[in-house]
């Protein structure tokens, strides 16, 4: 604790002083925006691949003309799998499936979770208790078991996976939202706003939502990474999207038997999965600082 503040002169909270402008951006801030940029590049690469796969893939996903386990090289840039399908094609479609599953379950889980959480946050006594108990049960329930139930009730498909992951996620999001709402509602500025005659709907729109939004957004971004992993796990177990929809999870499972003879088949989907999840998590981390002005300025 001997060396001086590296960020330069008077970088602490400055009561009354002028807000920091661009000139002396603290080093910490630059590092955090680097986090956001790195995350965006990593996740953006996967998104780009997924978008391209909508219009163009090197081979048809069902084309098995390449021969079993062909090594990398033209025309199959990354080789083929044990059924003779082009690996690059599978990976590209897998990116699309992973993103669809991730975004779909975040949309479902986020919507359900935020609505339930807002309700529980505003509720007092029995309604709050009921919702909280339901959420606790849902959180205690293993996601995998929930997924199996959904798959048993419907069929193994991308939709079932999204439904299962989204439901499990909604409980976590709802519990977070509930706590955030309760905390904001207990603050003076809500009372202050109400002493001036602001109606409840306005209080929610003007003060509650903006104050819970930064935390919620970061959490949803983290949940996106977890959802991508969950979908891969479900596909690995055969509970995800059925062929010909390639999923990275299922590709891993299929390549398992031939990992010594054709390692790329197992390595490639694994690496892409890591790239996407790490990218999304970095974006979440970077967003935390962008979304919250008190963190943005005072550090």
């Amino acid at each position, binding site marked *: 604790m001997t060396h001086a503040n590296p960020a330069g002169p008077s970088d602490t909270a*400055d009561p009354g002083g002028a807000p920091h402008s661009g000139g002396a951006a603290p080093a910490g801030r630059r590092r955090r925006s680097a986090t956001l940029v790195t995350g965006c590049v990593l996740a953006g690469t996967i998104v780009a691949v997924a978008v391209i796969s909508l219009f163009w893939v090197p081979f048809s996903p069902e084309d098995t003309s390449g021969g079993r386990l062909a090594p990398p090289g033209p025309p199959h840039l990354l080789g083929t799998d044990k059924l003779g399908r082009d690996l690059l094609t599978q990976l590209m479609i897998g990116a699309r499936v992973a993103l669809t599953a991730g975004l779909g379950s975040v949309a479902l889980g986020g919507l359900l979770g935020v609505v339930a959480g807002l309700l529980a946050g505003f509720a007092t006594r029995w309604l709050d208790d009921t919702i909280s108990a339901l959420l606790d049960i849902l959180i205690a329930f293993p996601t995998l078991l929930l997924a199996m139930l959904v798959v048993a009730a419907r069929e193994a498909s991308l939709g079932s996976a999204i439904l299962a992951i989204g439901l499990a996620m909604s409980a976590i999001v709802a519990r977070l939202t509930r706590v955030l709402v309760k905390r904001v509602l207990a603050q003076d500025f809500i009372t202050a706003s109400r002493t001036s005659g602001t109606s409840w709907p306005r209080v929610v729109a003007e003060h509650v939502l903006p104050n819970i939004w930064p935390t919620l957004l970061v959490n949803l971004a983290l949940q996106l990474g977890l959802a991508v992993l969950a979908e891969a796990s479900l596909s690995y177990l055969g509970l995800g999207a059925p062929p010909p929809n390639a999923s990275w999870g299922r590709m891993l499972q299929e390549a398992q038997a031939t990992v010594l003879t054709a390692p790329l088949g197992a390595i490639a989907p694994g690496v892409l999965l890591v790239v996407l999840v790490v990218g999304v998590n970095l974006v979440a981390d970077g967003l935390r600082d962008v979304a919250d002005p008190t963190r943005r300025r005072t550090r």
Partner: protein
Amino acid sequence: MSLLDVSELTVRSADGRALVSGVSFTMEPGARLGLIGESGSGKSLTALAIMGLVPAGMTVSGSAVLDAPGLVRAEVVGATERRLNGLRGRAATVVFQEPLTALDPLMRVGRQLAEYLRRVRGLRGAALRKAVITALEEVRLTDPRRIAKAFPHEVSGGQRQRVAIAMALACEPALLIADEPTTALDVTVQAEVLALLDGLVSARGMALLFISHDLAVVSAVTDHVLVLKDGVAVESGRVLDIVNTPRHPYTRDLVGSARRLDSALDWSQR
């Protein structure tokens, strides 16, 4: 007719303890009343009960009637939320003790102020922006343009409290309730904010209900005081009378400690 008529106001906590018991007082338009007592004596709760905003679980009985010019005379205790929202702001509003928590940390100061100006005066666009600056100038903030663009944590405590006062004034209330508005401020800033509040209340002909634990501060801005102890009004009257001839033992304590502080200050100056 009185602007505010509080009679036998009682607030009970969820477990039935009386936090405020049987407090009665009236305020005429433009009157000033100090509500004095130590922390936990029910001062703030009395103010919240007048606004119909006691925390969930507490029950209010008795009566608090607000009769502001231009508004329908209304009983606050037991009124519906819709009815109360019509009263809050226009009939009465509150300036709180800690301006940092009383302002939304994620909203720029100007926007928070604009919210009230828009609702009360129906201003939009450029006229609204101009009104925000005028309102900030009115509470004698230098550089109102910078402050309007700042977040609450970017301005000083005294400036924040001035902003909070500007927000309360934007509602054009008939009664301003100031709940320890200077307690969280430095002593030098305290005097400035007190003088500002004093001037603005006079200029606008508002009534002022000033809540404090500090007899010296209360006597600087109000002419009558009501002394609360453990939720009971133990003494009331003109400030001069209370200071010179306190009747209740608790009031005597209050006056005594204020005098001791005064003489200590006098002695140190010599």
